């Protein structure tokens, strides 16, 4: 149905040229789900835009996009209008932004139905209601009259899918359809696309960076790197035993809930200025030879493969993925593949910062799990540096190094309420959370969006005040402190933010940002420079980066800077708030490695907050599961992941995507989408739990010890029996 042949897209803007796609070949047949995967900047969205004839201004495309025999690139306006929607319909990445705010979603759907299916308005409304029901919108007749701002994120994504299918397209294209959705929803949304292929015989092109999620629904997978197709073939082969070194590196970078080690690949995807005449991955590749740097590998069938499994590599790999198989090597010509700074991969002027990373990666290809990470401050830069005078000064500022095991954070029954400015009520974000973190310990915090993770992070840092309860950092409470004392206590707890570039002041240099905690502590300039240098070394960054502005940094560099800033004041506690969720997969692996190293310091406690269970498993000692502002389960990491007590934890684990074995035990599926109002009385999960009884609805649940962990559910002892007895899908 769709056949992209030799498609190249070059974008010219303000005197810069970017080769977004180079000689891409791709096919999608009716009834087939094809996954288009790769990291951002790889050209995934450009493929989607080409298919619907939405090339941006300044773009020059060569090649052909054949759709049912016609070339989309060369269609006239009239033909293109029919093709868009009826031929290929795009589901946009940000569904709420892709719905026009001033028209009801029902009208927007009937617009499509009347345009492409020639329905009269009355028939269209009826069909719209059916479509809404199909994509799992409860109360469809009422939702037709809703405006987009009245929908939740998951609901908006369902509406977006119904809009696309309402065009009755031959091909459905989904651009990152599950970004920003929780795991439980992700599975449901992806199921819709599988359904469209199976039930309606549509072709589906599923664009995603999240390999683990789409693995289950795709028939075939196409892997893009720097605008080129590096590998394509049947999903189970490509995702289980990939042949291209990049695909292997990509898969090895994904943390998995089974706790297998993550392997980091140095460098980042280059930004191509022209179609490459060598292998764009060669500078990062452990198997690269001289040939890879001289010629572009042609696309050919995988030697040991079958069917239409092809790759573009001179050195195809075989065999199942293991950590050892992707051992990293830093070649002498380690390319500075930083997309923001480097012109092409060809001009491999080695960026010293990344070079350093590559070397260490080569020296230490071990996993990033907590067990494997070295204990104690073995890396220079954490130990006391500088003259004795500086040390005394530090102590005066309240920076005595705690011994391992002493608590550095204690939260006791904290409630946080965000009051609306006018009127009563407000949003009850945390409802009685108690936890402690000791020096040398890493606490993982997991939960879906809206469960209070970010509020908890802000609470730990004193950025929000608890309505009741207390927060103690390094033995001191934020409450009651003012002015200089408060500012000094604040430097004892530091945060690493979700948005690495956004957490750096846009008009300040990197050096300014890192040194800010020291300036606030009154550290003299000479010592400041020395300490900043020490943390830079630890982050394996070159000093030249100090003069840069945040917008010149790549995400990975910016997050290293963020960690450096958190470290420089030698705090007792570092809170990592979703530190890798904004990063690409291979960069995420690099940063996770750095974080594991930092979290292993015995002088400090760490809190790692994430919606992604797999990354939390990687290096936490203990885990806390949050649900609607309450802790529902708490315990040692392996116990919680292998033997979850609370039904919610079990449901989370069961729906977590996995490329490996995944969650082994019996599964629990929750019955509805999360709703804020559930938190009011009784067990907050009552509305969604398959094991709910009247007692759950009426009684508040307290954490109770069950074996090595604690859970807030009175039915825990009965659950193994319930799991066996019920016919819950596995």
């Amino acid at each position, binding site marked *: 149905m769709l056949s992209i042949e030799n498609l190249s897209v070059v974008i010219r803007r303000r005197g810069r040229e970017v080769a977004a796609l180079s*000689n891409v070949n791709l096919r999608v047949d009716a009834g087939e789900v094809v996954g288009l995967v790769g990291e951002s900047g790889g050209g995934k969205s450009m493929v989607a835009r080409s298919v619907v004839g939405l090339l941006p201004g300044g773009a020059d495309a060569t090649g052909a996009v054949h759709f049912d025999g016609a070339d989309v*690139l060369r269609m006239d306006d009239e033909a293109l209008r029919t093709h868009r929607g009826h031929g290929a319909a795009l589901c946009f990445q940000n569904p709420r932004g892709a719905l026009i705010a001033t028209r009801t979603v029902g009208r927007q759907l009937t617009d499509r139905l009347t345009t492409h299916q020639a329905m009269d308005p009355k028939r269209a409304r009826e069909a719209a209601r059916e479509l809404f029901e199909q994509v799992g919108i409860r109360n469809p007749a009422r939702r037709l009259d809703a405006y987009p701002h009245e929908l939740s994120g998951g609901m908006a994504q369902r509406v977006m899918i119904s809009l696309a299918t309402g065009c009755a397209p031959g091909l459905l294209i989904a651009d990152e359809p599950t970004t920003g959705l929780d795991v439980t929803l992700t599975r449901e949304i992806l199921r819709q696309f599988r359904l469209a292929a199976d039930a309606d015989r549509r072709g589906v092109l599923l664009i995603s960076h999240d390999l683990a999620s789409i693995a289950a629904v795709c028939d075939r997978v196409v892997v893009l790197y720097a605008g080129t197709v590096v590998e394509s073939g049947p999903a189970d082969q490509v995702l289980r035993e990939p042949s291209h070194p990049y695909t292997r590196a990509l898969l090895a970078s994904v943390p998995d809930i089974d706790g297998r080690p993550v392997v980091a690949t140095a460098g980042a995807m280059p930004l191509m200025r022209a179609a490459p005449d060598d292998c764009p991955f060669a500078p990062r590749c452990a198997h690269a030879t001289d040939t890879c740097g001289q010629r572009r590998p042609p696309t050919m069938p995988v030697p040991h493969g079958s069917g239409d499994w092809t790759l573009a590599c001179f050195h195809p790999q075989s065999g199942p993925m293991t950590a050892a198989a992707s051992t990293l090597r830093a070649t002498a010509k380690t390319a500075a593949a930083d997309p923001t700074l480097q012109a092409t991969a060809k001009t491999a002027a080695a960026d010293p910062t990344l070079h350093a990373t590559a070397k260490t990666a080569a020296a230490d290809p071990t996993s990033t799990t907590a067990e494997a990470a070295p204990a104690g401050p073995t890396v220079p830069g954490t130990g006391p540096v500088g003259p004795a005078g500086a040390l005394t000064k530090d102590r005066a500022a309240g920076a005595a190094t705690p011994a391992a095991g002493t608590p550095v954070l204690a939260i006791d029954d904290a409630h946080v309420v965000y009051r609306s400015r006018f009127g009563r009520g407000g949003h009850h974000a945390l409802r009685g959370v108690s936890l402690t973190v000791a020096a040398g310990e890493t606490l993982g915090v997991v939960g879906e969006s809206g469960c209070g993770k970010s509020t908890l992070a802000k609470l730990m840092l004193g950025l929000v005040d608890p309505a009741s309860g207390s927060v103690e950092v390094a033995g001191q409470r934020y409450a009651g402190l003012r002015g200089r004392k408060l500012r000094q206590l604040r430097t004892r707890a*530091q945060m690493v933010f979700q948005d690495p570039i956004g957490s750096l002041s846009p008009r300040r240099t990197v050096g300014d940002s890192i040194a800010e905690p020291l300036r606030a502590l009154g550290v003299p300039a000479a010592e400041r420079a020395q300490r900043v240098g020490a943390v830079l070394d630890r982050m394996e960054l070159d000093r030249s980066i100090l003069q840069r502005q945040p917008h010149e940094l790549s995400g990975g560099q910016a997050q290293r800077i963020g960690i450096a800033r958190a470290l420089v004041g030698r705090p007792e506690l570092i809170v990592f708030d979703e530190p890798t969720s904004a990063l690409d997969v291979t960069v995420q692996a690099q940063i996770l490695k750095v974080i594991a190293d930092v979290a292993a310091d015995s002088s400090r406690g760490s809190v790692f907050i994430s919606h992604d269970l797999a990354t939390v498993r990687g290096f936490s000692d203990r885990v806390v599961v949050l649900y609607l502002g309450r802790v529902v389960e708490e315990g040692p990491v392996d116990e919680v992941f292998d033997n979850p007590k609370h039904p919610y934890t079990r449901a989370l684990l069961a729906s977590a995507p996995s490329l490996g074995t995944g969650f082994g035990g019996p599964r629990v599926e929750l019955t509805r989408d999360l709703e804020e109002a559930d938190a009011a009385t009784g067990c907050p999960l009552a509305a969604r739990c398959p094991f709910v009884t009247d007692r759950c609805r009426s009684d508040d649940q307290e954490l109770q010890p069950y074996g090595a962990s604690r859970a807030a559910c009175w039915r825990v002892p009965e659950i193994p029996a319930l799991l066996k007895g019920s016919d819950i899908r596995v």
Partner: protein
Amino acid sequence: MVDLRAAGGPGESADTAAPVKGRGVRGGRFANVLIVVGATILTVVTLAAIFAPLLANWGPEEIDPAANLAAPGGSHLLGTDSNGMDIWSRLLYAGRLDLGIAVAAVALAVVVGTIVGLVAGYLGGWVDDVLMRLVDIFQAFPTFILALAVAALLGNGTVNLIITIALVNAPAYARLVRAEARSVRELPFIDASVTSGSSTFGVLWRHVLPNSLTPVRVIAPLNCGWAMLTLAGLSFLGLGVSIPTAEWGAMISLGNPDVVAGRWWTSVPPGLFLLICVLGFSLLGEGLQERADAKRR
């Protein structure tokens, strides 16, 4: 089998090799044209005003007793007004006053407005309430009306005019910077700075201020043009610069009675100068705006 097409080899058919242009809008070039033209106009006018003594053959308030309402030509390039003063020479000298007052007033408005907006936006609470209610009262009037009232009450004089025009413009800047500061306040780098132990003043000065000024940079040039129009309007009504002094609005006012009689040269040229000069600011502002928009997209 090697797929030659992937390597861009001879498998490529001729018709698919021809590049197809994207149909999306590109934009951005016109912005540069606007900025260049605007800046050129302003440079020329500024230079003309500075070097007025070299370009003018009469003094700005020099009376030629032999020529009253003389038509253009001869020693009076653009004729004379009803006082016998040379229009061309006065036009050049007037640029000094018009540009000077407008730019000074906007600069003052930006400084005052920014401080108020920054403090209100970042601190919030009652400080914000009090400051913004004050701004509300100022903004309960159309700006020109407010300028009229303040100018009438303060009386004329260069400093008073600067204060008047600054005063009526400052509230808009306060609002603008406040809105910006409020959104900047929610950004993660502010939290990062607070947890780094920075003082409130440090956060304001080092992080909130530099990141709240973007809209001000775009609005200020447009505002300079508007300030010139306000000044000229006030003078035209007799509330700004008084008549013998060379100022475009006052010159138009002086030429007002001649229009009905068909004598165009006393009022049309000063208006044209004013229009071109304001247009320079408008072009510059529009260009900057478009560039900022393009960057945001």
